[in-house]
C-alpha cells in the first residue's frame, strides 16, 4: 500500500471514485481541484490503514451534502473542516487522528483529501459505502448497528451545528433542514468512532482501491480490458446508448437508459434503471445485476466512467457490474440498501451468480 497521496495521485483517485460512483455521487472535478490546491498548500496526505491507528484514536468521517447545482456554484469554504474539528475537541476533549471519506463513490471520495490536507491529518484507507448511495443511513456503520446519535455540521459562513438525533431517520431529517438553512450545501461529520469501533463497521482499503482503479487504465493498450481486470467486473453489454428517459421526482434524478448491443453483443438490448445511481440492469425481463452490487457505465474506448447526467444518446458505452462489499449482502445490509430499499420488488441475487 502506498503511504502518501501526492498531487499526481489525485487524478487517478478522481477517475477511480467516478467508477465507484456507479453513475452518482456528484462530479469529481471540483473535489480534485480542491484536493490539488490543498496538497500544494499543506503538503501530501498520508494514507493510513485502520491497523496503523491506536484503538482509541478518533476517526472523523466527512462528507459534503446538498444540491449539486449549489456546490458547483457556492464552493466550500476552506475552514469548514477546521470548525468541525474544533467542535469534536470540545465534545470529546481530544482531536481526531484521521479523516475518513463517508462515500468513496463520486465527489465525496476525492474531497476528503483536501479536508485532510487542511487539517494536517492522515486519510484513513476506508469509507462507509465502498460505492455511492443517496441516503445518510445507507452506510456501513448503520448496517453494523452503531447508533447515529451525533452529527456535526459546518457551513460556508462558519456556523457549526451539533445534532443529537434519536435515530437515523431523525438524523437524515434534521441534517437536511440544517443544510437547507445553510444555503443547500454543508460539510457533515457523522458516526464519529474510535479506530477500535471502526473495525468491522467500515469498508477498508477503498481509497487505495480507487487509486488503483484510476491507475489501471493509464496508458493501457486496452483500457476497458484493464479496468475489467482491476475490478473483476462482468461486461453486461457493449453497445450504443439509444434511449434515455429522465424524470425528477422526490428529489432524485430518476431515469431509464437503453443500450443496444453492437459487435459481439449485436441483437441484445439492456435497460438500466437509475435513481441518482445505476441500480438495476435488465435484459429481456431478466435482471443481470442489481443494487447493492456496483453497475457503472463507461466510455467503451477510454473506459472513463460516465455519470448519470453525462449520459447522451449515441454514446458508445460498456456496462460493467461487479460485487459489492460482503457487508451489503448481509440481511441488514440488503434491508438498508438492497433492491427493495429503492422500491424494486426483486429478491437480491449476487451479480457473479447471475452471470456465471
Amino acid at each position, binding site marked *: 500500500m502506498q503511504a502518501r497521496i501526492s498531487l499526481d495521485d489525485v487524478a487517478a483517485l478522481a477517475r477511480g471514485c467516478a467508477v465507484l460512483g456507479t453513475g452518482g455521487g456528484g462530479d469529481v*472535478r*471540483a473535489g480534485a*481541484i*480542491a484536493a*490539488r*490546491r*490543498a496538497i500544494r498548500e499543506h503538503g501530501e496526505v498520508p494514507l493510513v490503514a485502520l491497523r496503523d491507528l491506536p484503538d482509541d484514536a478518533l476517526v472523523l468521517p466527512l462528507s459534503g451534502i*446538498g*444540491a449539486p*447545482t*449549489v456546490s*458547483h*456554484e*457556492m*464552493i*466550500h*469554504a*476552506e*475552514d*469548514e473542516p477546521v470548525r468541525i474539528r474544533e467542535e469534536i475537541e470540545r465534545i470529546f476533549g481530544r482531536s481526531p487522528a484521521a479523516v475518513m471519506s463517508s462515500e468513496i463513490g463520486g465527489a465525496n471520495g476525492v474531497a476528503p483529501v*483536501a479536508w485532510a490536507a*487542511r487539517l494536517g491529518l492522515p486519510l484513513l484507507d476506508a469509507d462507509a459505502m465502498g460505492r455511492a448511495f443517496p441516503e445518510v443511513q445507507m452506510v456501513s456503520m448503520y448496517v453494523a448497528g452503531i447508533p447515529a446519535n451525533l452529527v456535526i455540521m459546518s457551513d*460556508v*459562513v*462558519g456556523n457549526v451545528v451539533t445534532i443529537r438525533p434519536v435515530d437515523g431517520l431523525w438524523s437524515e431529517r434534521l441534517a*437536511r433542514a440544517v*443544510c*437547507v*438553512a445553510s*444555503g*443547500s450545501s454543508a460539510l457533515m461529520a457523522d458516526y464519529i468512532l474510535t479506530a477500535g469501533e471502526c473495525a468491522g463497521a467500515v469498508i477498508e482499503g477503498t481509497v487505495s482501491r480507487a487509486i488503483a482503479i484510476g491507475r489501471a487504465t493509464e496508458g493501457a493498450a486496452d483500457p476497458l480490458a484493464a479496468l475489467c481486470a482491476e475490478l473483476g467486473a462482468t461486461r453486461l453489454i457493449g453497445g*450504443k*446508448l*439509444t434511449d434515455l428517459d*429522465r424524470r*425528477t421526482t422526490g*428529489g432524485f434524478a430518476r431515469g431509464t437508459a437503453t443500450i443496444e448491443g453492437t459487435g459481439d453483443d449485436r441483437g441484445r438490448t439492456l435497460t438500466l434503471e437509475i435513481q441518482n445511481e445505476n441500480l438495476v440492469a435488465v435484459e429481456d425481463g431478466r435482471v443481470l445485476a442489481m443494487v447493492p452490487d456496483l453497475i457503472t457505465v463507461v466510455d467503451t474506448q477510454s473506459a472513463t466512467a460516465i455519470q448519470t447526467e*453525462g449520459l*447522451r*444518446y*449515441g*454514446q*458508445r458505452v460498456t456496462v460493467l457490474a461487479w460485487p459489492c462489499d460482503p457487508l451489503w449482502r448481509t440481511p441488514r445490509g440488503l434491508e438498508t440498501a438492497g433492491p427493495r430499499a429503492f422500491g424494486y420488488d426483486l429478491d437480491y441475487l449476487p451479480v457473479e451468480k447471475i452471470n456465471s
Partner: protein
Amino acid sequence: MNERSLRIGIDVGGTNTDAVAIDEADRVVAKAKRPTSPDVTEGLRAALDAVLAELPDPRLVARVMLGTTHATNAILERRALGRVAVLRLGAPATTSVPPLSEWPDDLRETVAAGTAVIRGGHFVDGREIAPLDLDAVKRFLNEEVRADAVAITGVFSPADADHENRVAEVVRSELGDVPVSLSHEIGSLGLLERENATILNAALYGVARDVTIALQDALSVRGLVVETFFAQNDGTLMSVDYAARYPVLTIGSGPANSLRGAAYLSGVRDAIVADVGGTSTDIGVLAGGFPRESAAAVEIGGITTNFRMPDILSIALGGGTIVGRGSVPFSGRSVGYRIGAEALVFGGRTATMTDAAVAAGRGEVGTHPVPEEWLGHLAGAVRAADELVADAVDRVSLGRSGSGRSNSDRGDRPLVAVGGGAFLLAAEVPGAGEVIRPEHAEVANAVGAAIALASGRIETIIPTGGEGNTRARLIEKAKEEAAARAVAAGADSALVQIVELSEIPLSYLSEPAVRLQVKAAGPLAR
C-alpha cells in the same frame, strides 16, 4: 441592385479564410477563399479584397460580419493578453478553491495582476452570504494599479447581479475608465467555469480593440463605410460595440457559422451537417435551424469554461489527409494548405484524400491523373473514410436537441455536405437521409456569418411556489431582459423572438425553484 444593399461575411478558419458578398435577397453574389495567414489579419484582408474585386462597386456594401480566431489564437499563444485584476465576491464561502487555480502557469503569469476573494455574493435562495465589503475592494484596487482590466465574479450572480454591479461602480470611481468584465453578463451557473470565462474576457479587451481597428482600417482604406459585426459561438452576431465588451464570446464561432450557413444554403432546418475542411471534418446537428449545443464543459487553452458551443464531432479526415501504403489507410496527418503543390492530382508526390476522391470518381480536381500504382491504396482509403463518416453520422444522428422526442431526431435527417472538401463524401451515407450538396457549399461558414441573427441570453433562478402568477411574471421579465440584450447586440426590436426557454428544477431548497434559461434572437435592425 439597390444602393448599399450588400453584406459581406468573412470566416477565419484553421486552413482558409472565406468571404462572401450577399445581396438583399440573401443571394451569394461573390465569394473567395484565401489561405489563413499566421497573423490572421493578412489572410482576412486578402479574402476581403478578392470579394470586393468581384463587386461592381464596393460602396454597395453596408455591413461586414466577421467570424475570427484572433481571440482563440491570443489565448493559445499567450499573445497580446491584458493583465487582469481578479475579484471574487463570495467569502467566507468558496475559499477552498481560489481564482485561477489549475490555470497553466504561463497563462496565469501573463494574465493575473492580483486576485482577491472578498466578502459578498448570494446564497441560492437570494440571501446575502455576507454583506458586500466595498472597503476591501478599494484596498485591493489601490494595491493593484497595474491592471489593464478588472474581472468581477459574484457567487450566484446569474440570479442576483447586485453585488457585481456595485463593485463595478466602485472600480470605475477608483480607477476611472478601466474596462470591467461582470460574470453575470458572460456565463451561466458554475462558479469556477464562469469566473474563468470572465477573466479571459477581461484579458481579451486589447485583442478585441486590435481586431476592430485592423478590420475598420482595412475597410476604410478600401473606401467602405460600413457597420461591422462579430460572429459568436452560438451562431449569432453581436455589434462591434457589444463584441468590444464581450470578446470571449467570439471564440468558437466557426462551427456555428458553418452549421447556420448550411441551413440557409440548403433550406433545411433539421439536418446533420458535415463540414469537410483540409485537415478535419466537423459533424454537427441542426435542430430548428440552430446548432445543437454541447452539454460538456469547453476547454480553451487548458482552461475550463462553461460556454455553450455547438455539439461537434470532429474526425481527422479532410481533403489534405495523407494516404499511406501501410495497413492503416490514413493516420490523420494532413498536407494542409500545401495541397495545391503536394497532392498527386496537382503533380505532387503525396497521396491525399483528395486524390482518393478523384480516383473514386467523386470529383474532378487538379491537373494530373492519379498514378496507376496508387489506385489500390486510394480505393482502400475511400472505403475506410466512408466507414469513419458513417460511424460519426451514426453517433450524432441519435442525439436529440432536448428532452422531447420527434421522428426527425430518429436518424432520417438529411446530411448537408459543406466545406472545401465536401466532394469527399459518398453519394449515400448510412444513418442519414438524402445527401444535400447546396450551391456555394465551399463557403458555407462565411455565408453563415453574413446571414446570422443577433441574440441575447439570460440565466437566472426563480421561485416556482409563491402566490398567484409569480412564476409567470418572472418568466415574462426574463424574456423581456433576453430580448433587450438581443436588441443591445444589434437585433431589430420589432422582430426579436424568444427562440429557447428551459426550466430545470433544483433540489434541496426550502421552496421550489427552477434554473431558467432564455434566449432571444432576431434579424439585424435595418
